[in-house]
């Protein structure tokens, strides 16, 4: 058997699963003692180019409370054509279509390499994807222009049969009718009045087909869906919509001096949700919200329109001074839940210099699997490219997105699902009993969407599991593929049980440090969302001792200092849905060093790595910083790179750029790209991340070759470690 390292890697590649422990302690008591719970990171739609989907229905266990899917771990009696469920041990006959199976003629789902398998199933008529743009018009003209262009461009990226809709808002909300010729029509709502979904649908004329003026002829249900005037196939309204977007005006209501524009984001979203709810329930749909400022009126308002009242800060929140926050959060949560119930996801593109209320609105995306992208202006490549990337396609020419996912987790009887953290909502509590299952709805999935799942070992200490026993977990993900097919992906994993007392070393060696770090970090962030900051830190301190925790403590996920509430929400959102690699980058940024002395090398994230003759490339996931050391910067200023004899310098300069480009190509959302140099103002992005091993407090480094001092009172890693050691010893004592 290969090393655990290989095993882990192999498992991740095949199943998209990383477990914190790869041997499971066999009793509840032992599991509790391990501090890091039995848990895993699961990436439901891990890209598997080598995995051809099969075109039939999965075979299910016949026990009503189990319904596990036939998998390679099941025992099969080929003669009797019977299989035993490995979760509940129910013996099930194969369906008639499996009559021909034998040991040499096994269906794919029984082959070990198909521990993950994807079924394409027929469930009702295919429904097109729905994209509903919700656009803020209270923007500066140039921002609006950029947004217009991006939106127009996006039309060409949508599949021709996808349905698209447009809602614009400012002081009022306009729902644009796209089917009409001639005059552009829109339905207008005021931004201050909360309407029930029924009212919204009535006002949009969606209630009765007859009432919508459709010639009074009774419509078949599908017709009704396709005839919705607000959501039309792209290929039909391409031109119309392009013109419409082109004519999109800034919100015409005058904004008096000293006021913020009135933005009715809350109502706009409720109308978007209501519209989809009424027309395409349980169909994959994205509401894409583009906003350039905080909601300032109506339900869901985050700040009043008086400019003299600044938007809430962490300080206000701690002091309980954020007037609108609680109400707004409640409002958006209710909306998010409605959207989630119908399988619709909500993306937020918030581009403004000030905060826009992401803190309040984050649940919209968190609960529905939507994206959140934050930046300074729509007129930046950050927005333009990120938005473009939403519609990127895979090798099959299909979107990197899936909709309406339902993840069901089944476990063997010794295990129980404790919970999940990720962009999902829970739709069914674990059912106790054999093969306990649990369901979550993930309205929108991308190949990198990753959930953290936490388990409990329920086996009691006094009922040992026989040696060599294996616990199994089955993940059943039903979703709507971006090509509108319904698919079911089934992943079944198994790990050995181990007796913690006798096999503690084995268990220890099966520990996956990276996975555990991310899993614990998620727990921490999850708690941070709901609890007071310091408490979480203390909890984390108690729980964790590993190196990266130094960085986690310093990260914006837990530390709110120097971050606005919106930024924190933004960072946390991404942390909670990215896969392991990305999560690690977020926790501990990667620092590469480029020099004439050799190929690029990763270096310590430490101030000592900042040297005059190096170019550094730091990737924090959200930012990509290229830092030119002092000397390099001077050379560059002198223009050596343009001289033929210094071709190598030119190449050196180019190398990090190329690498950065590579990262930019794949990262979603686009990181903020920063090209800076020694002494540049933007260097702060680097300086704030590195371990302050040299500060103005330990001046011995001054003038010496080692790195750059950081002006901070933060403790350095060294100090932290020393302290930690002391604590560890004292606590064990």
């Amino acid at each position, binding site marked *: 058997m290969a090393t655990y390292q290989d095993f882990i890697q192999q498992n991740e590649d095949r199943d998209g699963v990383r477990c914190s422990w790869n041997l499971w302690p066999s009793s509840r008591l032992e599991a509790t003692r391990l501090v890091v719970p039995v848990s895993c990171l699961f990436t439901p739609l891990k890209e598997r180019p080598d995995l051809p989907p099969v075109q039939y229905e999965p075979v299910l266990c016949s026990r009503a409370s189990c319904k596990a899917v036939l998998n390679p771990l099941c025992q099969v009696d080929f003669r009797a054509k019977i299989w035993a469920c490995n979760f509940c041990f129910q013996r099930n006959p194969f369906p008639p279509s499996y009559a021909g199976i034998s040991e040499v003629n096994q269906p794919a789902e029984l082959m070990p390499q198909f521990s993950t398998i994807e079924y394409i199933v027929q469930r009702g008529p295919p429904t097109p994807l729905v994209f509903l743009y919700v656009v803020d018009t209270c923007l500066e003209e140039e921002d609006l222009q950029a947004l217009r262009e991006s939106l127009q461009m996006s039309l060409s990226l949508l599949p021709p049969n996808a349905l698209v809709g447009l809602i614009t808002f400012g002081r*009022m909300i*306009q729902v644009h*009718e796209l089917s009409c010729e*001639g*005059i*552009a*029509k*829109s*339905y*207008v*709502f*005021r931004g201050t*009045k909360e*309407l029930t979904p029924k009212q919204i649908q*009535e*006002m*949009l*004329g969606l209630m009765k087909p*007859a009432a919508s*003026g459709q*010639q*009074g002829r009774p419509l078949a249900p599908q017709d009704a869906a396709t005839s919705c005037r607000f959501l039309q196939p792209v290929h039909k309204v391409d031109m119309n919509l392009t013109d419409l977007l082109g*004519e999109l005006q800034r919100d*015409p*209501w*005058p904004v008096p001096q000293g006021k913020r524009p009135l933005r009715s984001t809350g109502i706009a979203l409720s109308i978007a949700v209501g519209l989809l709810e009424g027309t395409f329930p349980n169909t994959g749909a994205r509401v894409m919200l583009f906003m350039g400022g905080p909601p300032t009126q109506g339900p869901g308002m985050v700040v009043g329109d008086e400019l003299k009242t600044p938007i809430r800060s962490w300080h206000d929140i701690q002091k309980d001074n954020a007037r609108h926050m609680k109400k707004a959060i409640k409002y958006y949560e209710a909306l998010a839940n409605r959207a989630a119930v119908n399988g619709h996801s909500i993306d937020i593109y918030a581009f403004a210099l000030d905060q826009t209320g992401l803190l309040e609105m984050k649940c919209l995306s968190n609960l529905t699997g939507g994206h959140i992208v934050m930046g300074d202006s729509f007129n930046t490549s950050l927005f333009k490219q990120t938005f473009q990337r939403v519609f990127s396609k895979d090798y099959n020419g299909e979107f990197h997105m899936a909709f309406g996912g339902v993840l069901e987790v089944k476990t063997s009887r010794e295990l129980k699902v404790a919970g999940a953290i990720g962009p999902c909502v829970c739709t069914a509590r674990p059912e106790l009993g054999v093969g306990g299952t649990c369901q979550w709805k993930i309205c929108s999935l991308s190949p990198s969407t990753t959930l953290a799942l936490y388990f409990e070992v329920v086996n009691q200490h006094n009922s040992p599991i026989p040696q060599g026993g294996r616990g199994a977990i089955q993940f059943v993900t039903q979703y709507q593929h971006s090509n509108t097919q319904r698919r079911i992906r089934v992943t079944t994993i198994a790990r050995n049980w181990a007796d913690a007392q006798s096999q503690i070393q084995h268990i220890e060696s099966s520990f996956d440090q990276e996975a555990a770090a991310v899993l614990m970090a998620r727990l921490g962030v999850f708690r941070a969302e709901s609890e007071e900051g310091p408490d979480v830190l203390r909890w984390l301190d108690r729980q964790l001792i590993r190196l990266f925790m130094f960085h986690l403590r310093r990260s914006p996920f837990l530390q709110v200092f120097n971050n606005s509430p919106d930024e924190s929400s933004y960072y946390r959102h991404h942390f909670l849905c990215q896969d392991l690699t990305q999560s690690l980058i977020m926790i501990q940024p990667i620092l590469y060093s480029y020099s004439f002395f050799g190929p690029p090398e990763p270096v310590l994230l430490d101030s000592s790595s900042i040297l005059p003759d190096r170019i550094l490339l730091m990737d924090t996931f959200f930012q990509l910083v290229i830092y030119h050391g002092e000397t390099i910067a001077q050379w560059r200023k002198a223009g050596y790179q343009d001289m033929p004899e210094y071709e190598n310098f030119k190449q050196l300069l180019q190398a990090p750029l190329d690498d950065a480009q590579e990262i930019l190509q794949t990262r979603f959302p686009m990181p903020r790209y920063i090209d800076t140099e020694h002494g540049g103002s933007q260097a702060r992005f680097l300086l704030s991340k590195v371990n302050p091993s040299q500060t103005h407090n330990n001046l011995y480094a001054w003038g010496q070759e080692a790195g750059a001092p950081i002006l901070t009172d933060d403790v350095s890693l060294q100090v932290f470690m020393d302290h930690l050691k002391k604590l560890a010893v004292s606590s064990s004592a």
Partner: protein
Amino acid sequence: MNVNQQPHMASPYGQPQPGYQGYPQSGYGGQHVPGGYPAPYAPYNGPASAYQPGPPQGMRGPPTSGAPPVSAAQAYSQFGQGDIQNGPPPLGAPPQRSVFSQPFPTAAPPFSAPGPTQPPGPPLASQQTFPQAPPPSQPPFSSAPPQVPPASYGGPPPPVQASHPRAAPPTSQPAAFPGGPPPTSTPTQYTGPPMQQPPVSQPSSFHSGPPPPPTSAAGFPPQGGAPPRPPHPGIQGPPLASQGPPMSQANHVAPPQPGMLAGPPVPGMAGPPPQPGMQGYPPQQNGEYCRYSCCLSGSQASDIPPVQKTRHRIDPDAIPSPIQVIEDDKANKGSEPFVTGVRGQAPPLVTTNFHVKDQGNASPRFIRCTAYNIPCTSDMAKQSQVPLAAVIKPLATLPPDENSPYIVDHGESGPIRCNRCKAYMCPYMQFIEGGRRFQCGFCSCVTEVPPHYFQHLDHTGKRVDCYDRPELSLGSYEFLATVDYCKNNKIPQPPAFIFLIDVSYNAVKNGMVRIVCQELKTLLDYLPRENPDVQSNIRVGFATYNKVLHFYNVKASLAQPQMMVVSDVADMFVPLLDGFLVNVSESRVVIESLLDQIPDMFADTRETETVFGPVIQAGLEALKAADCAGKLFVFHTSLPIAEAPGKLKNREDKKLVGTDKEKSLFQPQVSFYANLAKECVAQGCCVDLFLFPNQYVDVATLGVVPTSTGGSVYKYTYFQAQSDQERFLNDLRKDIQKKVGFDAVMRVRTSTGIRATDFFGSFYMSNTTDVELAGLDCDKTVTVEFRHDDKLSEETGALMQCAVLYTSCSGQRRLRIHNMAVNCCAQLADLYRNCETDTIINFFAKYAYRCVLNNPTKNVRDSLVNQCAQILACYRKNCASPSSAGQLILPECMKLLPVYLNCVLKSDVLHPGADVSLDDRAYLRQLVSAMDVAESHVFFYPRLLPVHKLDVECDTLPVAIRDSEERLSKGGIYLLETGLNLFLWVGANAQQELLQNIFGTPAFGQIDSNMTSLPILDNPYSKRVREIVESFRAQRSRYMKLMVVKQEDKLELIFKHFLVEDKNNSGGASYVDFLCHMHKEIRQLLS
């Protein structure tokens, strides 16, 4: 006769009335009636003074005849009876006539007894009064005698007298005449009855040859052939005479009047009258008599009744003729300019063309008063019961040859006003102390003259610059208002027009949407402006609606308009600001594109439900958002039943008509609109409503906002593009183009002693003094009633100043001031001599139309009759020279009061026929409340023009004829104008040549009765007729659709409805009957 005759003073109608009165006097009636009864009459007649005799007999007879329930009839009257009368030809009508006739003419040899009449020598007397012929002098009727202004017809005093006399006289009849008053009186009564007919009719009949015909035709041979009549051979003679009378009538105007009046009574005069009377009688008599008899019988109970009945047959030509009065006024006053400087002088009638010279009082085009001599004390006012009111049309359009009010600018400190009562500088301010101060004419307070306004006085105490300053020398002028006079102390924005178009199924189907959109494209070039050379400042906006509202963004920068749908009708708001209200010239292309597309967009709509409240709210919100005043043009089709504020239910229930609950039908069914109207007024949002219903839409409720905001309601029931388009479009054009002010406040200040207490019209009042008008156009009229709160002095007279603060269509804030001074009188006679019946009727109509909101219509009618009777009785009692009670004596200025009042009482609002919808009544009710005098006049007493008498050579119109079927000739063609409709009535025997000229076909049968405009033919006749039609239309604020009515055609029923002197199908009294009734009322009051 008398009536007409008397030109000036009172018109002696009386007698006719006597009839009424007569009733009681069974005797009288009897007489006449008796006449009816051959036997009796004869006898009576025999007596010569048929009258008396008659009566007596009658009286006595009554018993006999009495039986005939007449009385019952009476009460009522006469109306009823009248009707009946016709029926009853059986009566010995002839005889009666003879009777009468006899008197007059002597001609009546047969009766010759009649002779007696004449004998009375005073045939006159006989006639008129039979009665009192004695009074021969003049017969009561005519005011003649005395000029006591009042002419009184009525005969002699009320029944009472009569009765007395009668009692005795009856017998004496003959004697009576001669005898004197008493007898007379009695006779009168009798006569009265007869008289009525006679007097009035006589003359008239004679005169109006035509009229008689009809009647005569119908009833009695005599009529037409009055002359022919054998029985009255003499009569014929009379007729001639009568003809004479007619003449006289004309004459009346002038001198003759008295004479005339007297005339009748008087010898010569009398002569004619008699005849007429004769004729009239006969015919009528037949019918009437019958009735009488009937009545009598009924009435017998009440002695007098009989008389009334008799009266029935009053000769329509003998009672005051509106046409005569109108023509007289034209002749007397039309020629020279009316100078306003003389206090207390009544202006020419509204039907007269005249030129006005403003010399310190407002032109009658701006203000007309019911009385130009106000009683000094409230006691007098109460006694007379003459309403003291002014009908004010602040922005009236003046003819081109009169200057519109000058604009005066008093600089930054604003117009100069009295410190105490705040009256504006006007000719009544007396400058004192060398011009350093002025004393207010209204409250007598002394105010400093600001230095910049100082001017020296000349030796008469007048300012030297008096004639340079309009505010010191004219009755009407305008001040520029300063910012203090603006809402929120902000100079107003230019106003906006918003067009709100119903696009529900009905609106699309009947073509309204297409027509409106098409027309608006051109109309937008004609928005009101003050200077015709510059573009209008008015901005426009467009919205359509059914169950939801669609706003349109027509910003100039757009390539295509954008539609914004607001479905949240429960909570209306305006979805856009910029782009909704635009300047026409800038956004023309987009607007045209929009108007082109609207009809197509909704061509296939299936939506039948509409909202209404939110529509107005939307317009209101738009104006609020734009912070300007403006006008909404709402084009609406149906009852708003869609779920929304202001939703209505169909409450049409004809069963309620005539019950105490009827008033609820005039009241709005929800209070929502009243509140909305209040908001509209606060914003200066005027609403004009164009309705295109094909069923009940509840005008009473929908009209609340328009009528409270100074707007108008136009109604096109069963609108059909083809036939109604012209009318609608012309109304729309006029409505959009007419001069209009916004956000107006009107205040009427008066000199100490009286004060404005009540206001009628389309406006809103939040307190008791300020009339708030969101919009005020040149056709809107406010009627103001005044009451005494102290004594007035004859020397100073009474002053009133009407100040209207408004925003002009260019956005300028201005104050229009109209001043009016009237005399105060200590003598009631002065009051009656200087009042204006048309204005009084205007007031009464508005008053009554408001009362129906809270009272059963019957009560309203009764109180109107009562008040009118009091007015006339007061006159009779205090101003008229003593005369017999049987005579009806009317003040010259009010001799048309009964006929006009009857028209008001018979109007659809107060006395609806079965086919009049509730909507129509509510519509008319609202319409009338903002009418000026000219419009209310023609509305209640339509103008009927004999087209066949047209002289194509000259510009003048043929003299109109009275609104009675009797006056129509089968061979004629008549044009009837009501202010809302035009009818061209074609007699079955109309000359072929005439038909050919007008209709292009010689055959009566080939005339298309569906045509709405006359064919354009190249002959002077056609041209002239069309010119007349056009000129009529030009005179009215609303376009009148032309309907061609062929005699005997089914449409004729509608036409006949407007022949207001006749009785109508729904029980409205004929003029004659009503006059009798009125007479009776008066007599009761006097007794």
